[in-house]
């Protein structure tokens, strides 16, 4: 791959990457190592002073319900919103792949939720969800689907369902982008061959489209799983972890421990445990990505 020319100048190459490495060390490597170290202390947030407590942050967390409830909420949220994102994303990509009126405008509009700030998305949805004047309750009442305004965010399981729905709305365009890009590279001849063999539209989807999408779907599912798992903004702003702590996922728990319970040590321990869970997904992602790079 590399020419002899490249090798001769490796010093220049190292100099060019040096600023990157420097910044990486300052804002990524140092904080990462530091988080591991801090998790062994009890640190008061206001004064940032603390005492060594060994592994007691971990044993306390693993022994109490709060961490496991957080993990459970986190997994429910991730699984729920991920499934909807993938299903709607693939369907929307298939839909936008077909010829239609003003197709590029339609594609741009579908991408928009992914593009806007989470703050904007949350404000808009909180207004839609508003129990007295929200349009959602009004339309559902009008359609006769409900007889009482629904409390979308203040009770369970509604709060989790609302989160999952808004998460799906905000992030499914990512799936659309990736799948649409892949769809455009599937050779037309494959479909023609399948049609000659007498395959209907459904059979063509199962036998031609889906196998072709397999590799991109694996990557997209892993990537979205990682990103959904670590989501903070959307959940924090929409429910704040409530009602009580029923939607308090691990990223919110980190924030809660650090800035409400005022203990940065315990917060770091939660963060480290969360990373440990995520490493499973990350390893899987690295494997798949490496395989794709090779092929």
């Amino acid at each position, binding site marked *: 791959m590399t020419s002899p020319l490249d090798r001769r100048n*490796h010093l220049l*190459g190292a100099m060019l990457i040096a600023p990157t490495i420097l910044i990486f060390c300052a*804002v990524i490597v140092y*904080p990462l190592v530091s988080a591991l170290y801090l998790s062994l202390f009890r640190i008061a947030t206001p004064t940032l002073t603390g005492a060594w407590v060994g592994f007691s942050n971990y044993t306390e967390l693993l022994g109490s319900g709060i961490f496991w409830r957080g993990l459970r909420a986190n997994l429910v949220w991730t699984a729920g919103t991920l499934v909807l994102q993938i299903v709607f994303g693939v369907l929307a990509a298939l839909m936008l792949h077909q010829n239609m009126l003003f197709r590029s405008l339609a594609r741009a*509009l579908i991408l928009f939720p992914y593009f806007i700030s989470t703050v904007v998305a949350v*404000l808009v949805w909180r207004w839609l969800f508003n129990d007295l004047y929200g349009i959602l309750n009004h339309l559902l009442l009008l359609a006769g689907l409900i007889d009482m305004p629904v409390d979308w965010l203040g009770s369970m399981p509604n709060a989790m369902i609302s989160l999952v729905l808004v998460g799906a709305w905000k992030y499914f365009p990512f799936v659309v982008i990736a799948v649409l890009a892949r769809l455009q590279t599937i050779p037309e001849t494959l479909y023609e061959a399948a049609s000659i063999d007498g395959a209907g539209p459904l059979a063509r989807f199962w036998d031609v489209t889906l196998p072709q999408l397999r590799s991109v779907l694996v990557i997209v599912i892993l990537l979205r799983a990682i990103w959904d798992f670590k989501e903070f903004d959307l959940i924090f702003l929409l429910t704040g972890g409530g009602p009580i702590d029923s939607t308090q996922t691990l990223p919110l728990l980190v924030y809660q421990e650090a800035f409400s319970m005022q203990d940065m040590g315990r917060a770091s321990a939660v963060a480290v445990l969360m990373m440990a869970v995520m490493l499973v997904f990350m390893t899987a992602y690295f494997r798949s990505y490496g395989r*794709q790079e090779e092929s």
Partner: protein
Amino acid sequence: MSRRGPLGFALYSLFAWSIVALVAFPLLWMVVTSLKPQNELFRRPPTILPQIVTFEHYVKLILETPFPIYFRNSVILAIGTSFAVIVVATLGAHSLARFAYPGRRFLAQLVLFTYLLPSVVLIIPLYMLMVWLGIANTLFSLMLAYTSFALPFALWLLRSFMASIPDDLEHAALVDGASRMEAFFDVILPQALPGIISTSLFTFILAWNEYLYALVLLNRDAWRPLTTGVINMLTSAFNIEWSLLMAASVMMSVPLIVVFAFLQKHLTQGFGAGGVKG
């Protein structure tokens, strides 16, 4: 795929557009709400299109709230972050794409890894670091923190842009007697320019939309960016003025729409980064 007649085309377009309308409805509703007078919001049944179109909320937002200050802070923050990140990432991506040295492969993987890293893990040590350095509560500290996600993203994207520039171009320049750095400035940089511009726009969006770091690292109202500033307007309000908040939402989305128009061509590569082979 299967050929459709004009009727089929029209029917399909109608169907597809109703789905698109459903997805776009929340954002449409945001614009509609921002144009209604406050008392029209509480009408039963709600009016779908505003009966009276008013821009009073936009005027109020600009004249009577700290919104313009938040907006200015966001502009400084997003432009500052993208500029700093692009300079560092362009050099770094060039190095990753065209030089060979020990650890290069490991570095490329590290970039990918950090791209997946949750901010909440980094935020506590970063917060303590900023306090210790005495730069907490400044836009500069926020810019520094933003590089933790913007730099890996920009590197990853630029690397794919750079890798697609044919080696022959650089070789020709080197044969003509240019040094590696001359070749970089005269040959690589002009070729990579579209990629550099779109990467900086994507970085701008990331910084513009960021919330968590701004929440933790900044608590002086005068320095808040739009994300935390507008949320502050929501939580500190005595009674929530939804049309004002919707107007704020529209205004903070306008720069993104402008950027979006420029990015059309590179949307797949930028938004799909990590998921789509660049």
